[in-house]
């Protein structure tokens, strides 16, 4: 018997990561803000007097006030209700798209790296092909085709042009990971290949995948904003932060500047917060990052 002395007990990996994460106050602040954005976007309208479809005939082009927190548009729509509705879209697009994009990258990259040979060459060819295609243009051209149908197709399309570089990184990580002895151990036990990928390879790059997903959240939100700004992507009557900014960008610098500044500033703050969370996660998951060690 090998008795384990009491002091050799360590914290589990998850707890250690959490502790390291909590030590980064900026990341914690970012997480808090993202949670706050969610709460406002989804719960806010329930407690707010105005809905985004409602018109207030008594106030057009009103500056922010107690009645209309972010002011009103020239048609009498309430800016706060619109912004919250837009934020709902943007958050969903960012999160669903990021999970989708990182998921495709993980599966394609790990399969290519693990099986090598012609599987690898085919997938690399696909990745390289998608990399040279102008994604923005293609989505722009395709957007009238599914106009009016679900905007979820749009999320899928955004993700489809987002995963390639991550997939290449996942592939090269798999190449080194599959030479590790625990992978051999599983193979020699007789574990099927797809199970090895799901059970051993992907969990061992989870830190990278988590980080990639958080970065994707912000870049997908921005991509959607970019497309919607040019009139593609989310189409009226749906609203996203992008369409809002598109509708009101001319107000910037005028007396009605609030119509532009509220959605724009919120967008910047949202993306910034998601990035803060991503940074914090990266440092917390990387045991080599020197953070918070008492000096």
């Amino acid at each position, binding site marked *: 018997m090998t*008795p384990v002395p009491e002091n050799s007990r360590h914290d589990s990996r998850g707890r250690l990561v959490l502790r390291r994460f909590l030590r980064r106050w900026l990341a914690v602040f970012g997480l808090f803000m993202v949670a706050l954005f969610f709460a406002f976007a989804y719960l806010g309208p329930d407690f707010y007097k105005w809905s985004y479809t409602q018109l207030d005939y008594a106030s057009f082009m009103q500056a922010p006030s107690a009645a209309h927190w972010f002011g009103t548009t020239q048609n009498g729509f309430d800016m706060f209700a619109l912004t919250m509705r837009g934020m709902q879209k943007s958050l969903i697009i960012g999160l669903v798209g990021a999970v989708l994009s990182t998921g495709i990258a993980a599966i394609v990259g790990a399969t290519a790296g693990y099986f090598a040979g012609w599987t690898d060459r085919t997938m690399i060819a696909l990745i390289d092909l998608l990399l040279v295609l102008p994604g923005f243009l293609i989505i722009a051209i395709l957007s009238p085709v599914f106009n009016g149908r679900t905007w979820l197709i749009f999320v899928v399309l955004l993700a489809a042009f987002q995963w390639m570089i991550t997939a290449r990184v996942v592939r090269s990580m798999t190449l080194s990971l599959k030479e590790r002895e625990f992978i051999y151990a599983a193979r020699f036990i007789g574990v099927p290949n797809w199970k090895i990928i799901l059970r051993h390879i992907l969990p061992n790059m989870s830190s990278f995948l988590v980080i990639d997903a958080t970065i994707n959240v912000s870049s997908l939100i921005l991509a959607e904003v970019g497309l919607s700004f040019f009139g593609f992507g989310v189409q009226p009557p749906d609203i996203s932060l992008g369409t809002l900014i598109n509708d009101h960008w001319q107000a910037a610098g005028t007396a009605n500047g609030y119509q532009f500044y509220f959605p724009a500033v919120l967008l910047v703050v949202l993306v910034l917060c998601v990035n803060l969370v991503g940074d914090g996660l990266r440092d917390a998951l990387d045991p080599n990052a020197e953070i918070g060690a008492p000096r």
Partner: protein
Amino acid sequence: MTSMTSTPEPLLEVANLSVSFPSEAGTVAAVRGLSYRVMPGEVLGIVGESGSGKSVSSLAVMGLLPRRARVAGSIRFRGNEMLGRTDKELSSIRGNKISMIFQDPLSALTPVYTVGDQIAEAVQIHRDVSRKAALDRAVELLALVGIPEATKRAAAFPHEFSGGMRQRAMIAMAIANDPDLIIADEPTTALDVTIQAQIIEVLHTAKNATGAAIVMITHDLGVIAGFADRVTVMYAGKPVETGAVDDVFYRSRMPYTLGLLGSLPRLDVGKRWPLTPIEGDPPSLVHLPSGCPFSPRCPMRVEICDRTEPELVPVRAPGEAHSAACHRSGEIEEKNLSSIDVFPVAQAIESTADRLPREQRPAVLELVDLVKHYALVKGAIMRRQVGTVYAVDGISLDIREGETLGLVGESGCGKTTTIMEILGLVRPASGKIVVLGKDTAGISGPERFEVRREMSVVFQDPMASLDPKMPIADILAEPLQTHGVPPSERSRRIAELLQTVGLRPEHASRYPQEFSGGQRQRIGIARALALQPKLLVLDEPVSALDVSIRAGVINLLQKLKMEFHLSYLFVAHDLSVVRYIADRVAVMYLGKIVEIGEVDEVFDLPAHPYTQALLSAIPLPDPHKERARRRIILRGDLPSPADPPSGCRFRTRCQKFADELDDRRRERCIGEQPVLAVQGGPDSDHRAACHYAQGYAVLKDVAE
């Protein structure tokens, strides 16, 4: 400068040195009060396991610790205090008066400059000489450390050098400025034994050429026994025993030293030497208990050991050089206790008398002329073959039920390729693999899956062989789940397995990183046993473990073999372990088996020159024998398996070919590949592949 006085004054004096690092878990006390002196021209060995503080203390001497380290105490070199000096001041001493040889020669050389340039740079930094003169000196140094064609090789880049040659270049750089002190931090750990013997020879040369004192840091007691004058044993950041080599080796007065020496399998005596494993693991340096740090593992522990940490005090008379830090060292001295008296001897040696004769037992593994060649290809799209790596080139062996075959050889000899071929269970390029009566050539998918149940593997590196993201229970459940053991049965089996390998079933929910190296290796063994296999392939199962842990794992393997009637294919480069655990041994060189037979026959009277050299290269942890030995030093490095020499593959390094044979007889070595021929009596199965095989008792001439 106070040098050049006739009274012996210590060259380096370390007094009460302590080093600690802040970490997540708390302050790590890496070194806690280390004192030693090095006299000019003396060799001091510092021995310890990983985490004992031996490397950290030498980095402190060099002033190379990271800035967050807290260092206290005093380090005086030639009477001048080194601690607290600026990096710039230290730089004028480092590489000039004190130099260092690191463990990993690949990362110690810059890949983008030639070796000659790097040595010349080391000269030019400290001396006002021209570039030309410095380069000449570099060539001179490379020749001194035994690099052939030094002028040509000085223009080579580090990646063009083999590991052994890089380490030679490192030594050349270390002695470039005629230092007074060389600190060698595990200089041979990353190298093969035959190369290790070469490097130790070079260190002797370097010492004679410069007259420098050497601080030799290592975990290998054999290296220390033959090389050092004095030795300090470290445990948990503290010196626990120090003295002249003979005193420490033959009259150890600290239980840890006794245990360390007792847990080493001995090459010269084999199974007759009982191994005394030290239970448990080295303590964590974060929250050290107040008493003696060794007390939890010490069989001689008494109540005072847990209360106060013993001081390092002279063993016999005050002022004497041999000191030990143990409350009971007086008692050990008085009764002259040895490791067998102090530590419980594991009775794991099986009796082979009641076994069926070897020929009547069924073979669990049979290799017949197994060949594995890799094609060397060039080009990304238009692939063409530019050569062939003859990784495994026709080997035949068999393992009978209940038998352990040791497969030994240096890195690059093809041992790993061989076991990967066996474990892969696919049809070999040529030859035959028969596992448990099933030929892999004609086997179907489901049949192969069934064979996997009967054969399992334990890997070398316990850190890499367990998935870090999985709790132990999941790791052990994987083979059970894969082979359809119902869930209710699984948890019972997991608990049983953990107990079998000496771990507690409560540990099942922990992750691998919560265990020490030895414990992880036990988990790896438990996983291999999960499906009750008949054959276990053990790929260097103890070489990555600390010395004190090894014996426990070796004894566990012995016990399991008897308990579950297992057969082992034991791959190793450490011949002492093979001698202890194996029934038969096969020696590989460049993809061929050069000698095979009963382990005692082969080790007592090796017939192949390579086996002789291999046995002779291994240092024995016994200073008298070690000094008396005549060592066979092989020339050069292992040739590339892509371009093996014609005829006998060993002839380019063979001492017999070079020194004993005349030209006429050499013809045969060059022209004709030797085959395995029976040595000894007609009923012996000891065979060697050498045209001029002749038994030579390499170990005998020192044993008596």
